[in-house]
């Protein structure tokens, strides 16, 4: 059997692009959303192995259900919502929760980024779940409070409160340098 990379090269030779359709599976969407899903999953579960499982599960769900989207933002929101829910489901399991708590984030984060970015990421990761997700969606994905509220099925007041408290904790952890 051809590997995916070989198949991709083979297909791009024929069609002149990297969009692959195998058994109805388009890998263009995988390339488009894989990093976003992985980042979101990592933010929720704070663990690379579980984030990878969630990444796989989200795409399984997408290809199985083949949902119809109104537009790009709807599509992105669907992926984010499913990823957050998958992450929360995973965290609900007692054993997973215990395992995640035992993980040494310092090592994980240091593998990913340089020293300063690592410090910021570590500070974000040390925040409680609810603040961490709100901070990630607001600052990285650049969603508004209203959009985050709709994504996480919470009220706007709650999200605003999470953001404010998360920011306060983050500044405290980073030594009050940021504005």
């Amino acid at each position, binding site marked *: 059997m051809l590997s*995916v990379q070989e198949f991709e090269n083979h297909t791009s030779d024929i069609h002149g692009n990297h969009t692959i359709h195998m058994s109805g599976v388009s*890998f263009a969407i*995988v390339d488009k959303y894989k990093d976003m899903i*992985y980042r979101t999953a990592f933010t929720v579960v704070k663990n690379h192995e579980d984030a990878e499982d969630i990444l796989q599960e989200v795409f399984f769900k997408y290809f199985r259900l083949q949902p119809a989207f109104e537009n790009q933002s709807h599509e992105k929101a669907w992926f984010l919502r499913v990823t957050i*829910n998958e992450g929360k489901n995973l965290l*609900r399991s007692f054993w997973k929760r215990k395992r995640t708590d035992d993980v040494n984030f310092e090592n994980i984060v240091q593998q990913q980024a340089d020293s300063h*970015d690592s410090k910021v*990421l570590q500070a974000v990761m040390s925040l409680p779940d609810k603040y961490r997700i709100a901070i990630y969606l607001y600052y990285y994905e650049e969603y508004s409070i209203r959009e985050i509220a709709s994504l996480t099925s919470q009220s706007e007041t709650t999200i605003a409160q999470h953001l404010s408290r998360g920011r306060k904790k983050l500044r405290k952890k980073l030594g009050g340098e*940021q*504005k």
Partner: protein
Amino acid sequence: MNLHKEIKNAYRAIQVSDDMTERLKQELYQKDFHEEESETFIVEEAPKISIFRYVSFAVACIAMGIGIGVSMWNMLAKRNDNILNPSSTVPVEITATETTEDTKESAESIQNILD
């Protein structure tokens, strides 16, 4: 640098590696989604509630039911007891009707009669 830029930079470093992408595509390639398609009818977006929550809820309901049942049983039993045996709950107060002097007097009067 402000918090916004710092968080953006920090998160940018988290990416799916080429190996992981290859693995994911391989998994997706091997999976037959059409087979599973017929089994799925509802788009499941809401998080699932764990079995532990259901069990703890059921245990709490049973415990509450037992508690209410026992207290009602006790209340009814007490009520029936009051109706059937009213004296049983009335405190008996023993009052001294005769003093020792009275007893002495009555003893003397009996002795006098006998004499």
